[in-house]
């Protein structure tokens, strides 16, 4: 369903508050022709966008059903009118009722004396006013004494937090917008690489930019789709739903899957390249060489729109097929076939996290990115479309720190000496530097931490010695914001603020293609609130200019003002798509100054990157053997005789989320690692055996899943596990036993020379069976009684039900 709206031209626009990157075309397409709320069978039905918590950051269209009489939540169903997912949902949104009515759900703000960190029965319920007063008082005191730079504001993936977390810190005077993952190795490196090379980001064209989707007359299905280092069906990463690939397959697209594991998509692919983990750039460079030398590249596009082709060709020349086949564990013929398919137009590439979790992540991303540039796929129907935040709505990307800080102050951002991180528009602290600084207090001490919608101890705190936990213990005051009591909140936080779920709140969703309201369908349970509201309320105490609007809805109106509508208008329009144009670079629509070309120094896609050169990096892509591999560590490899890759996703969870949801957890109760039948047999390992996965620096337990989908030389281990059913207090392996079965404890926290990347996808390990007595989790002993005085459970829905 689509409604076209022509926007009157406003020649005297004084609405701009920040440099406008994109001037959208004066036409928008909306869902204004369908109601946003109606009644059905004694239920109120509210159309909305499911932007977690719980769930993920895709924001699928949903209809929330509530009881007309009581106003209580009943269920969520997919919204068949919504163009983004057309009524489909994954298991996690289908199971939202379980989250809403979960007994462990936190309902009230709580505090705990910092000397009792880690104790499960030292909590006191407080009011929101008390909580805000306390946070305000402690944080402003720290800021006044040690400077805003000594307080970090950390969020995780998903939810709505990155921009509002940055904005909250900025309001207090802290530039330390951050997250805890070593080498900031999730999405950010790829975006940074793309920004650096071509001044914008590109996405595979699965028609998601059009409200009429696959029926749009301009759209064509990609001839070939490369799935590179990603399992999109499950990961649904970065605003792209994986099952769109299946839609395209049904419309004739052929697949090439580059993955060490046979995923479902690989099983249906024309070509599956089972490459050795960590060798992506070798493969991409060899493909480039083959494409160039066999005249398969788009000479016209390269000539008109790319910079540095000759230097680039020189750089790829050394990477021949024989060498690549040997290094990547591939067949030469397959690399040739992949090169030929890459060169066909249109071809789209869905890339993923595997490129980030590599110490050479920038150069690997550059190598893959350049493939779709030299083959002329950019902004072509069915190719790689250039994207931006619609109407500059700040829901996906963080605000520009230069609105608030001077360049001098920006230098105080932790890790700002990594020029690639600082200057590529990513505006985050460098995670490993931040963790070091938390632990050592050098070059200056971190006194305060705000940890919102992230559970780093379970999900991304690497190192056997949990340095994130240790570092946070050095802080004077730590606030945690989440829906459930997590290991991070239990171990480290002094004040806990309870979050509500998306059916219970107002909000905005936006990634690249369109914007939509999240409409509140029912009251939040207990006193829980949502991320937007909390940050807006607290932020206004510190800087009203950064948090404008007298009400939260006015703040949302501020965020979407460039669409020329208010939040209330936007509710009635449901979804709002700016008109999408292909080939923007050829029409003067890709640069703010209206010139032809791309938004780079040369106006071209820089195959030879002037910016990388300026930042002291190699301007051209290259391959370097991962530091922990059979070839770089032949001695270690004798003992640690398997290549370890980690973090494959499963339908049942979103990273460390959903571990307490019975319906989901019952389908995947324990963390597993995948091992080839031959490798398992050699080690006497049988299906389901609990095993130690041990690297030179640490070990953890996971259950063996014996499967031929991995190479006999490779194991893949799950990430993000903690155990809501285990003891909340630390009995030697972390709160809620989070380090017992957590693959991050065998991996180091170390980044590449750009400040980006880590070794989560390529390390060395050995595996062997656990002794029987090494298997059980610590049974809950603390607090002695479930509802003992001071127990955090007294402030959950379970206590409410008991009462």
């Amino acid at each position, binding site marked *: 369903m689509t409604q076209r709206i022509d926007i009157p031209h406003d020649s005297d626009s004084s609405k701009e508050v920040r440099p406008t990157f994109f001037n959208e075309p004066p036409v928008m397409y909306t869902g204004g022709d369908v109601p946003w709320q109606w009644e059905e*069978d004694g239920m109120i039905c509210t159309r909305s966008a499911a932007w977690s918590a719980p769930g993920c950051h895709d924001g699928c269209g949903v209809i929330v059903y509530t009881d007309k009489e009581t106003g209580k939540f009943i269920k969520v169903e*997919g919204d068949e009118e919504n163009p983004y997912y057309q009524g489909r949902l994954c*298991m996690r949104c289908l199971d939202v009722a379980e989250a809403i009515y979960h007994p462990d759900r936190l309902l009230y703000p709580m505090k705990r004396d910092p000397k009792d960190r880690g104790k499960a029965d030292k909590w006191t319920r407080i009011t929101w006013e008390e909580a805000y007063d306390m946070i305000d008082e402690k944080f402003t005191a720290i800021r006044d004494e040690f400077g805003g730079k000594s307080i970090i504001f950390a969020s995780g993936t998903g939810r709505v937090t990155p921009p509002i977390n940055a904005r909250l810190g900025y309001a207090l005077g802290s530039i330390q917008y951050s997250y805890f993952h070593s080498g900031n190795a999730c999405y950010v490196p790829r975006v940074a690489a793309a920004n650096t090379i071509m001044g914008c980001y590109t996405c595979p064209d699965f028609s998601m930019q059009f409200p009429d989707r696959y029926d749009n007359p301009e759209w064509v299905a990609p001839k070939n789709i490369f799935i590179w280092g990603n399992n999109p069906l499950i990961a649904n990463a970065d605003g792209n739903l994986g099952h769109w690939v299946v839609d395209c397959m049904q419309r004739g697209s052929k697949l090439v899957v580059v993955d060490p594991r046979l995923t479902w998509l690989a*099983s249906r692919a024309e070509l599956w390249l089972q490459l050795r983990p960590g060798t992506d750039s070798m493969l991409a460079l060899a493909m480039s060489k083959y494409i160039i030398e066999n005249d398969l590249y788009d000479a016209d596009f390269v000539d008109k729109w790319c910079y540095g082709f000759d230097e680039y060709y020189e750089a790829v020349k050394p990477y021949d097929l024989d060498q690549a086949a040997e290094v990547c564990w591939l067949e030469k013929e397959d690399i040739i076939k992949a090169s030929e398919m890459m060169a066909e137009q249109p071809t789209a590439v869905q890339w993923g996290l595997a490129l980030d979790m590599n110490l050479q992540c920038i150069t690997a991303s550059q190598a893959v990115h350049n493939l779709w540039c030299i083959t002329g796929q950019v902004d072509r129907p069915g190719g790689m479309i250039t994207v931006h935040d619609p109407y500059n709505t700040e829901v996906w990307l963080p605000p520009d720190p230069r609105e608030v800080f001077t360049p001098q102050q920006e230098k105080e951002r932790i890790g700002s000496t990594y020029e690639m991180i600082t200057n590529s528009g990513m505006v985050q602290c460098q995670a490993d530097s931040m963790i070091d600084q938390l632990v050592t207090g050098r070059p200056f001490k971190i006194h305060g931490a705000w940890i919102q919608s992230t559970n780093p101890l379970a999900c991304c705190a690497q190192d056997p010695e949990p340095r994130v936990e240790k570092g946070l213990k050095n802080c004077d005051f730590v606030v945690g914001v989440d829906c459930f009591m997590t290991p991070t909140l239990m171990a480290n936080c002094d004040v806990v603020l309870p979050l509500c779920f998306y059916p219970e709140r107002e909000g905005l969703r936006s990634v690249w293609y369109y914007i939509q309201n999240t409409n509140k369908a029912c009251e939040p349970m207990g006193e829980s609130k949502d991320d937007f509201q909390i940050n807006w309320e607290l932020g206004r105490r510190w800087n009203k200019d950064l948090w404008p609007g007298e009400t939260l809805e006015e703040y949302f109106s501020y965020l979407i003002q460039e669409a020329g509508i208010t939040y209330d208008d936007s509710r009635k329009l449901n979804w709002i798509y700016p008109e999408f144009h292909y080939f923007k670079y050829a029409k003067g629509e890709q640069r703010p100054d209206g010139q032809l070309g791309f938004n780079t120094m040369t106006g071209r896609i820089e195959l030879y990157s002037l910016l990388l050169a300026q930042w002291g990096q190699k301007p051209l892509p290259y391959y370097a053997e991962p530091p922990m591999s059979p070839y770089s560590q032949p001695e270690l490899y004798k003992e640690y005789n398997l290549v370890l890759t980690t973090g494959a996703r499963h339908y049942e969870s979103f990273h460390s989320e959903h571990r307490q949801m019975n319906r989901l957890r019952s389908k995947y109760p324990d963390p597993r690692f995948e091992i080839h039948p031959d490798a398992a047999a050699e080690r006497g390992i049988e299906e389901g055996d609990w095993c130690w996965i041990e690297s030179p620096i640490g070990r953890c337990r996971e259950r063996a899943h014996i499967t031929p989908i991995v190479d006999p030389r490779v194991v893949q281990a799950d990430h993000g596990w903690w155990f809501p059913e285990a003891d909340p207090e630390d009995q030697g392996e972390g709160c809620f036993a989070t380090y017992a079965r957590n693959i991050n404890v065998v991996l180091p926290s170390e980044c590449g020379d750009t400040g980006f990347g880590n070794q989560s996808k390529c390390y060395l390990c050995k595996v062997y069976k656990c002794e029987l007595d090494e298997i059980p989790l610590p049974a809950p002993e603390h607090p002695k009684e479930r509802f003992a005085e001071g127990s955090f459970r007294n402030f959950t829905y379970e206590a409410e039900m008991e009462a």
Partner: protein
Amino acid sequence: MAEKAYGLLINYEYCTGCMSCEMACAVEHDIPVGQYGIKMEEIGPWQIDKKHWQLDCVPIPTDMCDLCAERVGKGKKPTCVKHCQALCMDYGPVEELAAKLATTKTKSVLFVPKSGVAE
């Protein structure tokens, strides 16, 4: 149900094994954890030859499937069909589904669960 049999047509060339059908059915019908109105079964993966793998996912309705009688009565799709992420499920009279099956170009299977058989 009626004189005509009703069923579910599954195009298992495209079923990805995402289990949305299982979950949609379970929450709609309040089915206990561990029981199913429809259950996805995976066949594979194993390698057939150098370039081919056996991996299929097929959702199988159980005796607890009532073919979403209440929803269908209101003119809605069965919830598994509506939420299927691969859009590979179809519901209807067996006659119609069989006609589609007769010209299918991809791997398919037609289930007539207990609740769908003709009387």
